[in-house]
């Protein structure tokens, strides 16, 4: 159920004049049919979440096409014009460049970057916010950017790192496929961070855009000798605090 300013919304409220994409429609249908109450203070707050979720999906498709390479943290590389590579394999924004340009460069010159799936997820979230905010606002809100995994993360995006069981899973969520019996020589296959794209599809960096069973099959190929557990989609998701991000506008 969705409530906006205390009023319950129905599907019909979105049917006339609503120009949402299929992603937004999927989100609305899931929220409305949910047993859980999703409350928004205003229509704008709901619209912001729908728009940002849509842009997370769009940015995932775009990153998949960018030429960004997969590399383990030990072997990551980045365009040194915009980023410093940190000792632990993450990327830290250079002080003399605009954050928006640095994020866009990952998308425009993907071949100059190689990194693990978690870093790619963070790039997706930043690019989606750049699409939603104006460039000026983006640069004001995120003057320093660190891309690694969930451990050096902007306070506005830290909730992406918290994995929690959810009543409903939505496009734009960060999900995780776990591979408990991974081959010890390839720990990078211990799991795959993905973005839920809706329609049963997921984007994982290095693995591409696939359905859950295909990702699980790939992970299962990378299990250890004598493995007795299969890979699986974990029943939890990380998602940004959309309301807080809306307030930053």
């Amino acid at each position, binding site marked *: 159920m969705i409530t906006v300013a205390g009023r319950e919304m129905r599907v019909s409220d979105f049917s006339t004049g609503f120009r949402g994409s299929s992603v937004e429609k999927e989100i609305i249908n899931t929220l409305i049919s949910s047993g859980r109450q999703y409350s928004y203070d205003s229509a704008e707050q709901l619209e912001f979440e729908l728009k940002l979720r849509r842009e997370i999906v769009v940015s995932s498709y775009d990153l998949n096409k960018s030429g960004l390479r997969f590399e383990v943290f030990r072997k990551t590389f980045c365009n040194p014009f915009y980023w410093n590579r940190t000792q632990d394999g993450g990327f830290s924004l250079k002080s003399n460049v605009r954050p928006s340009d640095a994020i866009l460069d990952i998308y425009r010159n993907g071949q100059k970057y190689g990194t693990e799936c978690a870093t790619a997820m963070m790039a997706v979230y930043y690019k989606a916010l750049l699409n939603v905010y104006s460039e000026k606002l983006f640069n004001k809100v995120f003057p320093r950017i660190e891309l690694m*995994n969930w451990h050096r*993360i902007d306070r506005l995006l830290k909730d992406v790192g918290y*994995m929690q069981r959810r009543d409903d899973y939505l496009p734009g969520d960060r999900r995780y496929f776990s591979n408990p019996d991974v081959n010890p020589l390839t720990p990078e*296959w211990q799991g795959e961070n993905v973005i839920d794209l809706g329609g049963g599809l997921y984007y994982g960096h290095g693995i591409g855009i696939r359905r859950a069973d295909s990702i699980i099959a790939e992970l299962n190929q990378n299990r250890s000798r*004598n493995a007795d557990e299969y890979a699986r989609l974990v029943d939890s998701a990380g998602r940004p605090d959309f309301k807080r991000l809306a307030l930053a506008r």
Partner: protein
Amino acid sequence: MNFDRTRVNDLEYIRRTRGAKNCRSTFLRIAETQRQKALALINDSGLMFATFFILRDEIIKMNLREELNDRGKTAMEICDIILGDKSGLPSYDRRIDEEIGNVRETLLWIFGTGIRDDGLNEDFDQILDNAAAVLIKDHCESSVLPDVIKLIFERNRKGRYFHDIAWVCFQTRDVNALRFIAGYLRSGNPKDRALARSLLNLPEDIPLRTVQDRERRYLEYIEWLRENDPYIYFTGESFQFSNSPILCSVDLNAKYLCKDCAECMRKRPIELTEEERSKISEFFSLTDEEKAELARTSQKLYKENPSLWEQWIHYPVDEQIYTSRLGSGGERV
């Protein structure tokens, strides 16, 4: 670092005092004129893995590979397997075959003598991590655990990548790992304490500033561990998964039933039989706080008076809670 010149392998001594480049050129010079001496040096039991590692190209160049001892041949093979190209796509056949001679001993040599040179370069560090992972996952070798934990904290202090080696640590599913990590709650280094707190999933606001605070928290944790040891299982969560992974947890069902989690290899919560399910069906409906309280009472009673526990466990849950709160040790009131 000072070395006893008379006891250290010559190549080892040269690398440590004059650097890798000098060590390589010296080894080449010896191999060109005194092949047997070069082989004796590289096959020497006192050689550390780091020195062997930096001489791999020279060993190949001088066609010495086939004349290495078993340890050397196996180490070369392990390096080839680990450092082979694995960018992007999965390598289905990437395995350190158990058929390779003395693989376990060689992995122990690689890791045990290699950690003192951790940070040599990314390839070297990767070999250390992978060697530890294979020892723990494929060979169930827990003896490396203290060194694995030491490595995690050393890398963290230096701001280096430690998430894979932390993952390896919890793959042991050995409660001793928690005990070793708890020791770092007493560290004078705030980075150690913060990481120990994170790995042990302790609240961020627990005070660890003074020596007394640290000692108290450490002892509290060890006491908690003593009580819960048999009921701890490892969740499989990692730093790849979350910024606050819960790496292990207490299985309250197991604690309530006094069933050891080792039955499930500490891989997951215990699997209950139908009979056990029905026996504790009321327990399932309790709040987490009530479950924790009752599980604690059950475990204590089981330890102190097993025959009384046998009766108590069949009481209705509300009566168990009542006796638990009275502290009557399970005696019907």
